[in-house]
């Protein structure tokens, strides 16, 4: 499991100062669990607006949405994480994630907050997590709202694309 941590730490400078370095994560809620996405990978947060389903696409593709004149593909994270399908609520939000192939919309039940977490507080995820999911959780951290799993969002998205 140490390689995973080092995977994250790859991007982070070593040393005491590096321990005090602060990372920012957007905390989102799926069902009752909290997941975090690195802020620097997020372009913006938007409200879901007329998601047009596209026939013949995989189940995790919810459809297309017009955001500021650009066509955005919206992905259902719950399907990806095998947590059933997303139900639209009033708190539902779409996180626009910057990927190498352009922005992708991630549908979540609620955006909780942006958490500032120091490097030393990042923990190796527990092995109790399902093995299927475990590979997409880079780390975990305690927040005021509970335990937050930090997603490896690119891997998750790429996995699907593969």
């Amino acid at each position: 499991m140490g390689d995973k941590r080092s995977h994250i730490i790859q991007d982070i400078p070593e040393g005491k100062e590096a321990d005090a370095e602060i990372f920012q994560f957007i905390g989102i809620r799926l069902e009752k669990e909290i997941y975090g996405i690195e802020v620097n990978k997020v372009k913006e947060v938007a409200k879901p607006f007329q998601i047009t389903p596209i026939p013949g696409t995989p189940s995790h593709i919810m459809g297309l949405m017009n955001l500021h004149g650009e066509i955005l593909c919206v992905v259902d994270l719950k399907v990806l994480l095998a947590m059933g399908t997303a139900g639209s609520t009033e708190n539902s939000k779409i996180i626009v994630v910057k990927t190498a192939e352009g922005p992708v919309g991630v549908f979540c039940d609620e955006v909780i907050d942006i958490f500032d977490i120091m490097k030393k507080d990042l923990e190796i995820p527990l092995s109790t997590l399902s093995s299927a999911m475990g590979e997409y959780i880079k780390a975990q951290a305690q927040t005021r709202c509970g335990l937050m799993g930090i997603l490896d969002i690119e891997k998750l998205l790429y996995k699907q694309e593969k």
Partner: protein
Amino acid sequence: MSDMYWRLVIPLAIILAFNVALFVLIKVKIIQRLKLTKNLIIVLLVVTLVPILCTSFAAQRTISSATYAGICEKLMAVGKTRSLFLNEKLEAVKVDAETFATNWIAIEVLRRISFEKKDRSDPDFNALFERAEGHFNRSRVAKGYDDIMLVSAEGKIMLTCSGHKKEIGLDISEETYFKTGMGKTHFTDLFYNKFAEKNLIYVITPCRDLQEKFIGCVIVEMDMDRIYDMLSDREGLGESGETYLVNKEKLMVSESRFARDAILKTRVDTFGVNEGLLGRSGVAVYNDYRNFPVIGSWHPVQYTNWMLLAEIDQKEAFMPLRVNRLNQIILISATAVMVIFIAVFSALATVKPVRELIAVARHIGEGKLDQEVKIQCHDEIGVLINMFNGMVRNMRLLAEQAAVISRGDLTTSVDARGDLASAFNVMGDSLRSLIRQCQESIVRIASASSQMMSSFEEQSSGATELSASVSEITATMEELSSSAKQVAMNAESVAKIAEDSEVTGQQGMESVSESVHIMEEIKKVTKNSADKILSLSEKSQKIGDVLGIIKEIAGETHLLALNASIEASAAGEFGKRFGVVASEVRRLAERTKASAEEIKNVVSEIQVSTNESVLSTEQSVKNVEKGVDVVQKVGRSIESILNLIERTTDASRQIVMATQQQQSATAQVAGTMREISDVVKQTALSLKQTTATVAELNKMADDFKEVVRQFKT
């Protein structure tokens, strides 16, 4: 004609009227209502005195007018004669004066004085003057004048004869009589001459020369002595007759018989003087200067403005008339007295036997038959007296027979004629048979009365028993009456209690209606609060809406803040500060959201509780309605209780009334029973009395038998 009327027609009419009146009085029998004496007196007086009075009245009138005419004639004659004499006398004076004025010596003297202005210093003129003086003095003495004077044309007295030397030279040119006398002969009025010292009149006449020139005047002074002698002659004028003169100032010129020293002093303003001043002569009756009624004549006198009045007192003139009237009164009175005497005498002569008859008849009327009229007359009244005496005798016989019958002797009969006597005899027979019948009847009465007595005694004992039983009934009725009174009292108290309950029930009724009212009030208030709660619920709903908006805005803000944070993070070191702000905003939005959520929860709690309250209010409204129903039910039952009470009151009242009626009826029965008891008692008493009476009757029948036995039949 009028005289004729007074003397004949009126007396005749009066006599006729009186006689007709008398006739009528006799005819309608008014005069017969008086007694005989008065009757006769009235008739005789009317028949004798009325004609005598009428005749004397007529005679009196004739004599009176004749006397008046005679006196007037006499006065006119005397007055005329004397005025003629006076006129002649004055005419003579005038002629004398004019003669003196045409005497040559007077002309000569005056001519020389007036034209030649001579005076007595001239010897020739002095001689002439003395001659003239002598001439005129002689003439004066001869004619009896007081004086003769010559007056010059300037009005100076030049010559006098009477020796009044003081008069010579006196200027009279301003005197009225001189001015008038310059033209023609003028008579002055009587005046007092201070030189002669007596009353005189002047006769002044103008003197002219041969050329008809005025040269002076001659004045003759005359006193009135001779005229007075003539006037004071009283021949034919009686005791109060007189003649006198009055001048135009209405002053007396001559002496009067009744006024001494009257000349030019006494004023005479009488009807005669006023008529005489108009220049006429006449005669009339008027009041003279002494204010005595007189008959007088008046005559104007020539030259002077005098008039001569001849007057005689009315009293004296009409003296014979009064004497005549007195004579007549005496004669008529004597006649009346005689007539009354004769009437009374003849009436008494007629009336005396009638009075005797009346006295005896009064005695007989009183039942005394022992008198007879003893006066003997031969006229109709005498016949009446004889018949009356016979009648009285007949009555006396009948009275004697009645006395015999009254003694119980029915065996005799009266032997007089007439219906009364025969009726008397028939009566005797009837009485005889009656007595016999009576005797038989008495025997029968006696037996009947003893039977009655026994039956009455039986009745009496029955009545006593009846009385006892009636008393018992009365006592029972009185007990009944008192018990009915008790019942009535009880019923009255029941009625009283029922009335009190009614009052209380009505109060309860009022309370019920008040409760209903209050319930309604509660219902209204509760509904009101339910409405308010509903509106509160609506408002909280609205708050919820607003909260939704707030929440949305907070969400948007959160999103914006997130994006801002992302942008800040993207900006790296430069965006750090902005990131802090964005995170603060985000926190704020979150807090807002949380608060909104909290408020929403509270609001929804409020909504829940308001809904609950609405429900509970509705429940309470229902409960209040139920309460109203219950109270109304209570009211209805109180009402029915009231009705029952009312009926109870009515029933108890009826009981009271019925018991009262019963009581009064019982009392009436008791009263009636008492009356019956009284009646029974009275009946018993009267039965006893009747029994006694019947016993008496029995005894009386025995007595009667004894009495009847006394009659001889």
